[in-house]
Protein backbone atom coordinates (compact mmCIF):
# COMPACT_ATOMS: atom_id res chain seq x y z
CA UNK A 1 0.00 0.00 0.00
CA UNK A 2 1.08 3.57 -0.55
CA UNK A 3 3.17 5.01 2.24
CA UNK A 4 1.43 7.95 3.88
CA UNK A 5 3.06 11.37 3.77
CA UNK A 6 3.21 13.44 6.93
CA UNK A 7 0.48 16.06 6.58
CA UNK A 8 2.92 18.78 7.68
CA UNK A 9 5.53 18.03 5.01
CA UNK A 10 3.95 20.69 2.82
CA UNK A 11 5.13 23.29 5.34
CA UNK A 12 8.71 22.04 5.06
CA UNK A 13 11.34 22.00 2.37
CA UNK A 14 10.81 18.26 2.15
CA UNK A 15 13.51 17.81 -0.49
CA UNK A 16 16.14 18.39 2.21
CA UNK A 17 14.55 16.14 4.85
CA UNK A 18 15.67 14.36 6.99
CA UNK A 19 17.08 17.50 8.55
CA UNK A 20 20.63 17.83 9.83
CA UNK A 21 19.86 17.95 13.55
CA UNK A 22 21.55 15.25 15.59
CA UNK A 23 19.59 12.23 16.84
CA UNK A 24 17.56 13.25 19.85
CA UNK A 25 18.16 16.98 19.33
CA UNK A 26 15.38 19.21 20.59
CA UNK A 27 15.46 21.34 17.45
CA UNK A 28 13.41 18.80 15.52
CA UNK A 29 10.78 18.79 18.24
CA UNK A 30 10.64 22.60 18.26
CA UNK A 31 10.21 22.58 14.47
CA UNK A 32 7.45 20.01 14.90
CA UNK A 33 5.64 22.12 17.51
CA UNK A 34 6.07 25.26 15.40
CA UNK A 35 4.65 23.74 12.23
CA UNK A 36 1.74 22.29 14.21
CA UNK A 37 1.15 25.74 15.71
CA UNK A 38 1.13 27.38 12.28
CA UNK A 39 -1.27 24.78 10.93
CA UNK A 40 -3.54 25.02 13.95
CA UNK A 41 -3.76 28.81 13.64
CA UNK A 42 -4.54 28.58 9.96
CA UNK A 43 -1.55 30.83 9.21
CA UNK A 44 -0.43 30.86 5.60
CA UNK A 45 3.35 30.55 5.30
CA UNK A 46 3.13 32.99 2.38
CA UNK A 47 2.11 35.58 4.95
CA UNK A 48 5.05 34.85 7.23
CA UNK A 49 8.68 35.87 7.46
CA UNK A 50 10.90 33.73 9.70
CA UNK A 51 14.13 35.29 10.92
CA UNK A 52 16.97 33.46 12.58
CA UNK A 53 20.57 34.01 13.73
CA UNK A 54 23.52 31.65 13.92
CA UNK A 55 23.42 28.35 15.76
CA UNK A 56 21.73 25.02 15.40
CA UNK A 57 18.27 26.24 16.37
CA UNK A 58 18.55 29.02 13.80
CA UNK A 59 18.28 26.23 11.25
CA UNK A 60 14.78 25.44 12.44
CA UNK A 61 13.14 28.01 10.16
CA UNK A 62 16.01 28.33 7.69
CA UNK A 63 16.25 26.20 5.61
CA UNK A 64 13.59 23.78 6.86
CA UNK A 65 10.42 25.88 7.08
CA UNK A 66 9.01 26.79 3.70
CA UNK A 67 8.29 30.50 3.86
CA UNK A 68 10.21 33.73 3.31
CA UNK A 69 13.21 33.40 5.60
CA UNK A 70 16.10 35.60 6.71
CA UNK A 71 19.15 33.86 8.15
CA UNK A 72 21.10 36.72 9.69
CA UNK A 73 24.29 37.37 11.66
CA UNK A 74 24.88 36.04 15.17
CA UNK A 75 22.75 37.74 17.78
CA UNK A 76 20.91 40.07 15.45
CA UNK A 77 17.74 38.34 14.19
CA UNK A 78 15.49 40.49 16.37
CA UNK A 79 16.98 43.69 14.94
CA UNK A 80 16.62 42.46 11.35
CA UNK A 81 13.08 41.32 12.11
CA UNK A 82 12.27 44.79 13.45
CA UNK A 83 13.00 46.30 10.04
CA UNK A 84 10.88 43.69 8.28
CA UNK A 85 7.91 44.11 10.61
CA UNK A 86 7.97 47.91 10.52
CA UNK A 87 7.71 47.95 6.73
CA UNK A 88 5.34 44.96 6.43
CA UNK A 89 3.17 45.02 9.56
CA UNK A 90 0.66 42.83 7.78
CA UNK A 91 3.03 39.85 7.75
CA UNK A 92 3.54 37.52 10.71
CA UNK A 93 7.19 37.87 11.63
CA UNK A 94 8.71 35.17 13.81
CA UNK A 95 12.23 34.88 15.22
CA UNK A 96 13.56 31.41 16.08
CA UNK A 97 17.09 31.26 17.43
CA UNK A 98 19.18 29.96 20.30
CA UNK A 99 19.98 31.15 23.79
CA UNK A 100 23.52 32.28 22.97
CA UNK A 101 22.22 34.17 19.97
CA UNK A 102 19.13 35.82 21.49
CA UNK A 103 20.15 36.27 25.12
CA UNK A 104 23.95 36.27 24.88
CA UNK A 105 25.41 38.31 22.06
CA UNK A 106 21.93 39.52 21.13
CA UNK A 107 20.81 40.39 24.64
CA UNK A 108 20.58 44.10 23.99
CA UNK A 109 18.24 43.61 21.04
CA UNK A 110 16.04 41.29 23.11
CA UNK A 111 15.72 43.83 25.91
CA UNK A 112 14.72 46.67 23.64
CA UNK A 113 12.36 44.71 21.45
CA UNK A 114 10.55 43.61 24.61
CA UNK A 115 10.60 47.15 25.95
CA UNK A 116 9.14 48.49 22.72
CA UNK A 117 6.57 45.71 22.73
CA UNK A 118 7.04 45.24 18.99
CA UNK A 119 4.64 42.77 17.41
CA UNK A 120 7.11 39.93 16.93
CA UNK A 121 7.13 36.37 18.21
CA UNK A 122 10.51 35.22 19.47
CA UNK A 123 10.98 31.53 20.22
CA UNK A 124 14.30 31.14 21.97
CA UNK A 125 15.56 27.57 21.98
CA UNK A 126 17.61 27.32 25.17
CA UNK A 127 19.90 24.29 25.24
CA UNK A 128 22.12 25.90 27.88
CA UNK A 129 25.23 25.68 25.73
CA UNK A 130 26.86 26.94 22.54
CA UNK A 131 26.16 23.69 20.73
CA UNK A 132 27.03 24.36 17.11
CA UNK A 133 30.58 25.42 17.93
CA UNK A 134 31.23 22.31 20.02
CA UNK A 135 29.94 22.92 23.54
CA UNK A 136 31.26 26.16 25.01
CA UNK A 137 29.65 27.70 28.09
CA UNK A 138 26.71 29.98 27.47
CA UNK A 139 25.07 32.61 29.66
CA UNK A 140 22.41 29.98 30.29
CA UNK A 141 24.78 27.19 31.38
CA UNK A 142 24.14 26.22 35.03
CA UNK A 143 26.78 26.99 37.65
CA UNK A 144 29.32 24.28 38.34
CA UNK A 145 29.07 22.59 34.96
CA UNK A 146 32.18 21.62 32.98
CA UNK A 147 32.16 22.75 29.37
CA UNK A 148 34.91 23.18 26.82
CA UNK A 149 35.53 26.77 27.96
CA UNK A 150 34.87 26.11 31.63
CA UNK A 151 37.02 23.00 31.99
CA UNK A 152 37.32 23.42 35.76
CA UNK A 153 33.75 24.47 36.41
CA UNK A 154 31.41 27.24 35.36
CA UNK A 155 31.41 29.99 37.98
CA UNK A 156 28.52 31.94 36.44
CA UNK A 157 24.88 31.46 37.31
CA UNK A 158 22.43 30.64 34.54
CA UNK A 159 20.56 33.53 32.96
CA UNK A 160 16.76 33.33 33.29
CA UNK A 161 16.01 35.08 30.04
CA UNK A 162 12.23 34.83 30.19
CA UNK A 163 12.20 36.65 33.54
CA UNK A 164 14.23 39.48 32.05
CA UNK A 165 11.84 39.75 29.13
CA UNK A 166 8.87 40.08 31.49
CA UNK A 167 10.64 42.86 33.35
CA UNK A 168 11.52 44.62 30.08
CA UNK A 169 7.87 44.95 29.15
CA UNK A 170 6.81 42.15 26.80
CA UNK A 171 3.12 41.37 26.31
CA UNK A 172 3.31 37.58 26.39
CA UNK A 173 6.02 35.46 27.95
CA UNK A 174 6.09 31.73 28.57
CA UNK A 175 8.62 29.04 29.31
CA UNK A 176 8.28 25.39 28.34
CA UNK A 177 10.57 22.50 27.56
CA UNK A 178 10.79 20.16 24.61
CA UNK A 179 9.07 17.59 26.80
CA UNK A 180 5.97 19.77 27.27
CA UNK A 181 5.15 19.85 23.59
CA UNK A 182 1.37 20.33 23.73
CA UNK A 183 1.44 23.47 25.88
CA UNK A 184 4.50 24.62 23.93
CA UNK A 185 2.52 24.45 20.72
CA UNK A 186 -0.38 26.31 22.27
CA UNK A 187 1.93 29.00 23.62
CA UNK A 188 3.39 29.47 20.17
CA UNK A 189 -0.12 30.01 18.87
CA UNK A 190 -0.86 32.49 21.65
CA UNK A 191 2.32 34.42 20.92
CA UNK A 192 1.71 34.58 17.18
CA UNK A 193 -1.93 35.45 17.60
CA UNK A 194 -1.37 38.19 20.15
CA UNK A 195 -0.38 41.67 19.09
CA UNK A 196 2.76 42.71 20.92
CA UNK A 197 6.06 41.14 21.86
CA UNK A 198 5.62 37.42 22.45
CA UNK A 199 8.53 35.44 23.87
CA UNK A 200 8.81 31.75 24.61
CA UNK A 201 11.89 30.30 26.24
CA UNK A 202 12.03 26.66 25.18
CA UNK A 203 14.36 24.57 27.31
CA UNK A 204 15.80 22.06 24.88
CA UNK A 205 18.38 19.31 24.68
CA UNK A 206 21.79 19.09 23.01
CA UNK A 207 22.87 15.49 23.61
CA UNK A 208 25.89 15.69 21.32
CA UNK A 209 27.76 18.76 22.52
CA UNK A 210 26.44 19.20 26.02
CA UNK A 211 24.58 16.18 27.28
CA UNK A 212 27.22 13.56 26.71
CA UNK A 213 29.67 15.54 28.85
CA UNK A 214 27.32 15.81 31.79
CA UNK A 215 25.86 12.31 31.80
CA UNK A 216 22.76 12.96 29.70
CA UNK A 217 23.71 11.10 26.60
CA UNK A 218 20.38 10.88 24.80
CA UNK A 219 17.26 12.86 24.04
CA UNK A 220 15.16 10.75 26.41
CA UNK A 221 17.73 11.29 29.20
CA UNK A 222 17.23 15.03 28.88
CA UNK A 223 13.46 14.86 28.56
CA UNK A 224 13.26 12.79 31.73
CA UNK A 225 15.38 15.43 33.44
CA UNK A 226 13.18 18.25 32.13
CA UNK A 227 10.06 16.47 33.31
CA UNK A 228 11.49 16.04 36.77
CA UNK A 229 13.05 19.46 37.08
CA UNK A 230 10.06 21.40 35.82
CA UNK A 231 7.53 22.99 38.08
CA UNK A 232 4.44 24.85 36.98
CA UNK A 233 4.52 28.53 37.83
CA UNK A 234 1.15 28.24 39.51
CA UNK A 235 2.70 25.84 41.99
CA UNK A 236 5.64 28.05 42.92
CA UNK A 237 3.71 30.43 45.14
CA UNK A 238 5.46 30.77 48.46
CA UNK A 239 8.59 28.96 47.34
CA UNK A 240 11.95 30.58 48.06
CA UNK A 241 14.69 31.51 45.59
CA UNK A 242 16.78 28.71 47.02
CA UNK A 243 14.08 26.09 46.49
CA UNK A 244 13.54 27.21 42.90
CA UNK A 245 17.19 27.54 41.98
CA UNK A 246 17.53 24.14 40.31
CA UNK A 247 13.97 23.96 38.99
CA UNK A 248 12.67 24.95 35.58
CA UNK A 249 9.65 27.16 36.12
CA UNK A 250 7.25 26.48 33.26
CA UNK A 251 4.01 28.02 32.16
CA UNK A 252 2.76 31.44 31.21
CA UNK A 253 4.82 34.11 32.93
CA UNK A 254 2.85 37.10 31.71
CA UNK A 255 0.00 37.98 29.40
CA UNK A 256 -0.95 41.62 29.20
CA UNK A 257 -2.10 44.25 26.73
CA UNK A 258 0.08 47.25 26.06
CA UNK A 259 0.57 49.79 23.28
CA UNK A 260 2.38 48.16 20.40
CA UNK A 261 5.42 49.71 18.74
CA UNK A 262 4.86 49.32 14.99
CA UNK A 263 1.25 50.44 15.01
CA UNK A 264 2.23 53.61 16.84
CA UNK A 265 4.90 54.38 14.24
CA UNK A 266 2.37 53.99 11.47
CA UNK A 267 -0.03 56.21 13.40
CA UNK A 268 2.51 59.03 13.41
CA UNK A 269 3.12 58.51 9.72
CA UNK A 270 -0.60 58.73 8.96
CA UNK A 271 -0.98 61.89 11.03
CA UNK A 272 1.89 63.61 9.25
CA UNK A 273 0.83 62.56 5.76
CA UNK A 274 -2.64 63.93 6.51
CA UNK A 275 -1.15 67.19 7.77
CA UNK A 276 0.81 67.64 4.56
CA UNK A 277 -2.24 66.81 2.47
CA UNK A 278 -4.17 69.47 4.29
CA UNK A 279 -1.40 71.98 3.89
CA UNK A 280 -1.16 71.34 0.17
CA UNK A 281 -4.92 71.43 -0.33
CA UNK A 282 -5.55 74.47 1.85
Amino acid at each position, binding site marked *: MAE*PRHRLMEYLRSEIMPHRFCEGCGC*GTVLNAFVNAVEGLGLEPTRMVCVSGIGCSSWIPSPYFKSDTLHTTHGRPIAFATGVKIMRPDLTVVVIAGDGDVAGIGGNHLIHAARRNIDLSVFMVNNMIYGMTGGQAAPTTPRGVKTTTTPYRNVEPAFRAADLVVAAGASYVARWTTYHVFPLMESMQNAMRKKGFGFIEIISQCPENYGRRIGLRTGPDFLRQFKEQSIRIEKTAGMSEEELRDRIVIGRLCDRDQPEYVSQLHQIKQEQVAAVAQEVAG
Partner: protein
Amino acid sequence: MTSGCGSIEVQVSSSGESEGGSGLIYIDGDLCKGCEICISFCPLKVFENSEKLNRKGYYVPIVAKEDECVGCRLCELLCPEFAIIITNE
Protein backbone atom coordinates in the same frame (compact mmCIF):
# COMPACT_ATOMS: atom_id res chain seq x y z
CA MET B 1 17.03 -10.19 7.85
CA THR B 2 20.40 -10.12 9.49
CA SER B 3 22.95 -12.68 8.46
CA GLY B 4 25.19 -14.56 10.80
CA CYS B 5 27.86 -13.49 13.24
CA GLY B 6 30.16 -10.61 12.48
CA SER B 7 28.10 -8.80 9.88
CA ILE B 8 24.76 -7.10 9.70
CA GLU B 9 23.07 -6.63 6.42
CA VAL B 10 21.64 -3.15 6.30
CA GLN B 11 18.09 -3.20 5.11
CA VAL B 12 15.75 -0.48 4.08
CA SER B 13 13.02 -0.18 6.64
CA SER B 14 9.78 0.44 4.88
CA SER B 15 7.39 1.00 7.69
CA GLY B 16 6.62 0.14 11.26
CA GLU B 17 2.97 -0.05 10.57
CA SER B 18 1.19 -2.15 13.10
CA GLU B 19 0.54 -5.63 11.82
CA GLY B 20 -3.08 -6.56 11.54
CA GLY B 21 -4.04 -3.47 13.54
CA SER B 22 -6.11 -0.38 12.83
CA GLY B 23 -3.43 1.29 10.71
CA LEU B 24 -3.15 4.00 13.38
CA ILE B 25 0.61 4.50 13.68
CA TYR B 26 3.02 4.72 10.79
CA ILE B 27 6.77 5.15 11.21
CA ASP B 28 8.75 6.44 8.26
CA GLY B 29 11.90 4.42 8.82
CA ASP B 30 14.02 6.49 6.46
CA LEU B 31 13.51 9.61 8.56
CA CYS B 32 14.05 7.96 11.96
CA LYS B 33 17.32 8.62 13.80
CA GLY B 34 16.76 6.08 16.56
CA CYS B 35 16.55 8.66 19.33
CA GLU B 36 14.03 6.49 21.26
CA ILE B 37 11.97 9.46 22.47
CA CYS B 38 8.81 7.73 21.27
CA ILE B 39 9.75 4.51 23.03
CA SER B 40 10.51 6.36 26.28
CA PHE B 41 7.51 8.64 26.43
CA CYS B 42 4.49 6.90 24.96
CA PRO B 43 2.19 6.77 28.00
CA LEU B 44 0.98 3.32 26.97
CA LYS B 45 4.35 1.88 25.97
CA VAL B 46 3.20 1.14 22.46
CA PHE B 47 6.67 1.33 20.90
CA GLU B 48 9.61 -0.99 21.41
CA ASN B 49 13.20 -1.28 20.29
CA SER B 50 13.89 -3.41 17.30
CA GLU B 51 16.81 -4.70 15.33
CA LYS B 52 15.54 -3.19 12.11
CA LEU B 53 18.22 -0.89 10.67
CA ASN B 54 17.43 1.85 8.22
CA ARG B 55 19.61 3.18 5.39
CA LYS B 56 21.57 5.42 7.75
CA GLY B 57 22.25 2.67 10.25
CA TYR B 58 19.72 3.72 12.87
CA TYR B 59 17.54 1.20 14.71
CA VAL B 60 13.94 1.99 13.90
CA PRO B 61 11.33 1.31 16.63
CA ILE B 62 8.39 -0.93 15.99
CA VAL B 63 4.78 -0.59 17.01
CA ALA B 64 4.58 -3.43 19.48
CA LYS B 65 1.20 -2.87 21.15
CA GLU B 66 -0.99 -1.33 18.51
CA ASP B 67 -4.22 -2.04 20.41
CA GLU B 68 -3.08 0.06 23.37
CA CYS B 69 -2.79 3.26 21.31
CA VAL B 70 -5.41 5.84 22.23
CA GLY B 71 -4.38 8.38 19.58
CA CYS B 72 -3.02 10.99 22.02
CA ARG B 73 -0.49 12.00 19.31
CA LEU B 74 2.24 12.76 21.85
CA CYS B 75 4.66 10.64 19.82
CA GLU B 76 3.78 12.46 16.61
CA LEU B 77 4.42 15.83 18.22
CA LEU B 78 7.52 14.81 20.19
CA CYS B 79 9.26 13.09 17.28
CA PRO B 80 12.07 15.40 16.16
CA GLU B 81 12.12 13.85 12.72
CA PHE B 82 8.47 14.01 11.62
CA ALA B 83 8.85 10.26 11.28
CA ILE B 84 5.64 9.30 13.06
CA ILE B 85 2.31 9.71 11.36
CA ILE B 86 -0.96 9.05 13.14
CA THR B 87 -3.28 8.27 10.30
CA ASN B 88 -6.65 7.88 11.98
CA GLU B 89 -8.28 10.17 14.51
